[in-house]
């Protein structure tokens, strides 16, 4: 690691990379031109030993959305002042410990919101209009033999319940309105700048909705927010799309409801135990699965590089962070 470091590199500010995140792997050269990089995954040492040996003076960390930045890890980084996560979500970071130690946290902010919303709508269209299933049917040579295909579900006029009207939820709402959907939402609080009907009770929202789109953050309050009761309220003709975090839905219950035909279908981009997906879903034609890649378009990866390196540079030059979630 440090063997081939030139004097120029040694002058660069040091960051530890945890994950590593996809954006680091894609733009490694660019990151290396700005920062001196600690790469724990390249070491044979277990993480805690690596941190003890090499990262005691490190002030900044670049962290992937998958890396569990727990209290234990944070305790091995005594000089840490900044965490930059490539994700929009911060549920993988022990925020109360960061707050206690006055460690700033920056995330991807609204960078991915449009792309994630695009995928949410794409998944919904795919499930309701059976695009993937029909694709498989035709490619298996079954079209001439099966005759007419069963009816898909019309989007126009359907009631869509958005769970979490943050920046992603708003982008989803805007898109689905163009299809003639009618939007309502559930959120911690009513949003004053929005005209969509607000439902404080998730069960009420599910009961009046034809579609639920999960767009909220994962917190203690939202874990298993969508449970069996909510799914039953959504009903046999209801669809659910989740592009937020797997644990917001009780996955076991979701699988049961789908197997028993208690909801009409699901589009899922996130799961409780990624990359493991309940195999019971593999054979269901009314379920469309995506390998948690919503944020990843070629364009957004570059944007992600810009915002993460921008946050790190701002920190090292004592300038305000670009996208702070927690700031001391």
């Amino acid at each position, binding site marked *: 690691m440090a063997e081939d470091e030139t004097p120029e590199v040694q002058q660069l500010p040091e960051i530890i990379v945890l994950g590593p995140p*996809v954006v680091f792997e894609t733009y490694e050269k660019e990151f290396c031109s700005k920062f001196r990089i600690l790469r724990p995954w390249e070491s044979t040492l277990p993480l805690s030993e690596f941190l003890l040996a090499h990262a005691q003076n490190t002030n900044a960390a670049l962290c992937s959305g998958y890396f569990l930045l727990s209290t234990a890890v944070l305790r091995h980084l005594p000089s840490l002042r900044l965490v930059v996560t490539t994700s929009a979500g911060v549920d993988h970071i022990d925020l109360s410990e960061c707050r206690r130690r006055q460690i700033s946290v920056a995330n991807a902010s609204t960078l991915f919101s*449009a*792309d994630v919303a*695009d*995928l949410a*709508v*794409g*998944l919904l*269209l*795919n499930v309701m*209009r059976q*695009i*993937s299933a*029909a*694709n*498989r*049917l*035709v*490619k298996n*040579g079954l*079209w*001439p033999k099966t*005759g*007419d*295909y*069963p*009816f*898909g*579900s*019309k*989007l*126009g*006029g359907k009631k869509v319940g958005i769970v979490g009207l943050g920046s992603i939820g708003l982008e989803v709402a*805007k*898109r689905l*309105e*163009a*299809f*003639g959907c009618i939007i309502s939402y559930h959120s911690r609080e009513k949003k004053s700048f929005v005209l969509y009907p607000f439902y404080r009770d998730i069960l009420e929202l599910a009961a009046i909705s034809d579609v639920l789109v999960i767009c909220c953050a994962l917190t203690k309050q939202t874990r298993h927010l969508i449970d069996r009761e909510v799914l039953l309220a959504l009903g046999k003709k209801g669809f659910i799309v989740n592009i937020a975090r797997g644990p917001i839905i009780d996955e076991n219950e979701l699988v049961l409801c789908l197997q028993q035909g208690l909801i009409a279908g699901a589009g899922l981009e996130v799961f409780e135990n*990624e*990359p*493991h*997906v309940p*195999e019971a*879903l*593999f*054979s269901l034609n009314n379920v*469309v*699965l*995506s*390998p*948690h*890649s919503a944020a*990843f*378009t*070629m*364009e*957004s*990866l570059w944007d992600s590089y810009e915002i993460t390196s921008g946050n790190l540079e701002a920190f090292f030059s004592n300038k305000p962070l670009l996208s702070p979630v927690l700031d001391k």
Partner: protein
Amino acid sequence: MATPTQKPSSPRQQLGQIVHLGLSSFLNTHHKEFSSKFQILRPSESKFPLNQFFTAEAQNTQAAICSGGFKLSADILRHLPSLRLIVATTSGLNNIDLSECRKRGISVINAGNIYSADVADLAVGMVIDLMRKISAGNRFVKTGLWPKQGDYLLGSKLGGKQVGIVGLGSIGVEVAKRLEAFGCKISYYSRKKKPCVSYTFYSNIHELASVSDILVICCALTEQTRHLINREVLLTLGKEGLIVNIARGAIIDEKELVRCLLQREIAGAGLDVFEHEPRVPQELFGLDNVVLSPHFAVYTEGASRHLEEHLIGNLEAFFSNRPLLSPVLDDE
């Protein structure tokens, strides 16, 4: 519910007589409603050849329902001498000899825009599928590859992409409206520039292809649009370009499309329609960047209801000498 009558002719003669040309699962499903209002002749269920059936049974028939797959040729029209009205179940009329209808003074009504939203929804669904690799990702996960390969499928952002709509009719307008909400930039090619439309107009299909990232085919099939999308247009669309067709298969030169996809001259395609349905070029079956569907863009529960209203409404009006609900087409 219609009950069999003792008197063989009176009640039935009061019902207007319609000949149903072609096959329609819709009419089969809605058999009861139609039979209670009209007397329907079904040549497809007869063992006699069509023209023989018409000569024997349909010499006085004034109205026809024509399904999309049925080739309503001049020859057939000659065997239906009393025909005054054709109600098509489709929006497309490329299967009907319209000039012969005009000559004979037969009014033709199509399905208008009852399907437009549903068709546009499928077109946009295919665009997003191709751009964000949804069907490919679904297969990736369902074949158990995610834990093994850990690959992420890098898609392409929709916002800012140039979409070229070929044919800005009622479907094209619905596609444009939807894709605008994703931040796409809309241009179009049409026979004539549309007034009151802010999208950029191109009178030349090659120019549209050259500025577009995605082409969405929404026009009618006519002599002018047959093979409109040929090899040259596809090459102009380019290696990063996508094409979606929910209109009619023959608007694209299918052999050339297959060649361009196999040679990676374009990036992908979404196709609901084909030149020789239900035959689909098998070379497309193994391509992950191609999404295929069995000409089902209109098949939602909502469209079925609208079609029923369209057919029954117009036919009832015709037989009661009231104005028809839908405009009569004098030019496709």
